[in-house]
C-alpha cells in the first residue's frame, strides 16, 4: 500500500544569513512513512528538529536533500492534502471563530452560505456552538485550540499534521482535547503525524511512536508499535500494565537523548 506521507532520506541544513560558514543541520537522513489511517507520533528532546520535520511534510520548508512523497507523488510547494495544527496561535485575530473555521473553504472558493453552514457544523462538533461570533481574544486557550482543530478538519484533509498542539493547555483541558481528537480521528481514519515532547501523550494516542535523537543532525533511533486496544481513553489507558511496559521501553531509549540534548543546550548557553 502506498504511504499517505513518506519522507525519504530527508536532511535539513540551515545556513546563517550573516555568515555563510555558520551551518546547522537540524535533521539528517530521516526516513519515515505514515500509512493512510495511521496515527504516528514523533517524540524527541527539545530542539531536536521535530517541527522542522513537520514543516517539511507540510511543504512549508524544502529539505536540503531527500524527497517527500504524498500518496506516491513527489511533493512540490504546499502540501494540499494536509492540514496543519500549529503549536502557537495560528487563528486570524481579525476573524470571528466562525470566519476562522470557514477560511479554508473560502480560499477554495466555496459559496459563502455553504461554507458558513459547514463551519457551524464543525463548531458544534468541537463543542463551540454559540461561540461562532466571538473573536479569538474573547475565547479561552482551550476554545482557541478547538477552533484551530475545526479550522483544520473542516477541509477534510487526508493527512493531519500536529505540532505539539496541546502543549499550552492545562492537564485537564488537554486530556479532554486528546480524547476529542481521538474520537474525531476514529470516525474518519486519516493519516496523522503528531509531534510532541510528551511521551505519555504520544503512547496514549498513537499506533506507532518514533523516537528522534538529540540535535544537531537528529534522526530516528527507535520505533515502537503501540498495540493498545482502541477506542482508548487517554486518562485510563495510562494506568494499564501494557502502557507502563511500553513507556519504560521507549523511555530507556529516549532518556539518554534527553540528557544529551539538555547538556548541549547548557553548553551553548
Amino acid at each position, binding site marked *: 500500500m502506498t504511504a499517505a506521507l513518506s519522507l525519504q532520506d530527508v536532511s535539513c541544513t540551515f545556513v546563517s544569513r550573516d555568515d555563510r560558514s555558520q551551518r546547522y543541520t537540524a535533521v539528517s537522513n530521516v526516513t519515515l512513512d505514515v500509512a493512510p489511517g495511521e496515527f504516528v507520533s514523533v517524540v524527541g528532546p527539545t530542539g531536536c528538529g521535530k517541527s522542522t520535520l513537520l514543516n517539511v511534510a*507540510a511543504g512549508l520548508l524544502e529539505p536540503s536533500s531527500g524527497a517527500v512523497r504524498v500518496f506516491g507523488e513527489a511533493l512540490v510547494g*504546499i502540501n494540499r492534502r494536509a492540514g496543519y495544527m500549529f503549536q*502557537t496561535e495560528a487563528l*486570524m485575530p*481579525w476573524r470571528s471563530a466562525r470566519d476562522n473555521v470557514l*477560511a*479554508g473553504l473560502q*480560499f477554495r472558493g466555496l459559496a459563502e452560505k455553504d461554507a458558513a453552514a459547514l463551519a457551524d457544523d464543525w463548531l458544534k462538533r468541537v463543542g463551540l456552538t454559540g461561540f461562532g461570533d466571538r473573536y479569538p481574544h474573547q475565547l*479561552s486557550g482551550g476554545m482557541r485550540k478547538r477552533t484551530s482543530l475545526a479550522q483544520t478538519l473542516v477541509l477534510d484533509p487526508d493527512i493531519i499534521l500536529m505540532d505539539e498542539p496541546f502543549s499550552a493547555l492545562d492537564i485537564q483541558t488537554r486530556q479532554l482535547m486528546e480524547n476529542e481528537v481521538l474520537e474525531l480521528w476514529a470516525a474518519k481514519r486519516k493519516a496523522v503525524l503528531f509531534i510532541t515532547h510528551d511521551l505519555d501523550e504520544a503512547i496514549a494516542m498513537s499506533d506507532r511512536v518514533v523516537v528522534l535523537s538529540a540535535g544537531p543532525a537528529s534522526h530516528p533511533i527507535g520505533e515502537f508499535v503501540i498495540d493498545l486496544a482502541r477506542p482508548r481513553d487517554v486518562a485510563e489507558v495510562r494506568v494499564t500494565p501494557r502502557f507502563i511496559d511500553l513507556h519504560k521501553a521507549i523511555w530507556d531509549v529516549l532518556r539518554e537523548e534527553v540528557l544529551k540534548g539538555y547538556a548541549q543546550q547548557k553548553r551553548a548557553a
Partner: protein
Amino acid sequence: MWNAIRPTTRNLRIWQVGVLVILFLLWHVLTKPGLIPPLFFDSDNDAKFFFGEPVKILLRIWDWFIVDRDIYQHLWVTLFETVLAFAIGTVSGLIMGMWLALSPLAAAILDPYIKAMNSMPRVILAPIFAVWFGLGIASKVALGFTLVFFIVFFNVYQGVKEVSPTVLASARMLGASRRQLLRHVYLPSATSWVFSSLHTSVGLAFVGAVVGEYLGSSRGVGYLILQAEGTFDINTVMAGILVLTAFALVLDGIVGRVERHLMKWQPRAGETEKL
C-alpha cells in the same frame, strides 16, 4: 456639595466643557480693557491687541455661520482639500507600503530615497507645488498628500513586516493563494497599524491644506486668516483658528468611529478576557 459634582466617569463631558468655559472666562478677564489693571503690558489695550477678545471672536464666528453666512464657501474648500489629500495619501501609502514590504528587492533599492524624502522638510515644497499646479485646489492637495503619504506608508510597511509568521503559514496551509494572502492576511494585519497613523495624518492633511492656502490662494479658511492678519484683525485670526480646530476634531472623531467599527476584533486595554 463637592461629592455631588466630583469628577467621575459619568460627568466627564460636563467637566470637559467646564474646563473650556473656565479657559474662555480667564481669557476674557485677562484681555478685556479696563477690567483688571495691566499686569504685563504698558497699556490697557495691549492684551486685547495681541490675544484678541473671546466675546468678539465668538461674535465673529456667529456672523460667519449665522448672520453673513459667508464662511461656508471657504470652509468647504478647505475641508475638500483636506479630505482629498487624506484619501489619496492614505490609499497610495497603503498600496506602496504593501508593495515594498512584499518585494524586499524593490525596498532595498528605494530605501535611501524613501529615507531622504521622509526626512526632507516637505512643507518647503509648497511654493513649487504652487508653480506646478497653480493657486487652486490641486497644489494644496499635493502638499497635504506628501505629508499624509509617508506616515501611512511607514506604518503599513511596518504592519506587513510584523504579520505573525504562524498566521501566515496557517493561511497558506489552508490553501490561500498569493492574492488571498494579500486580501485576508496582510491587509487586515496592516490595518491596525494604519489606523494608529490615521489620527496623525488627518491633522497633517489639514496642515497641508491651510499652509497651502496661506501661501497663496483666493479661497479657504487659510486665506481668510491671511487676510485678517494683513489688517492686524487678531479676532478674526483667532476665530479662524477655532473653526479649523473644531473641524479637525470632527474629522478625527469620524476616523475614530470608523476605527472602532473595523477594529472590534482587537482587545482593548482594560477589557478583560471574556470567559
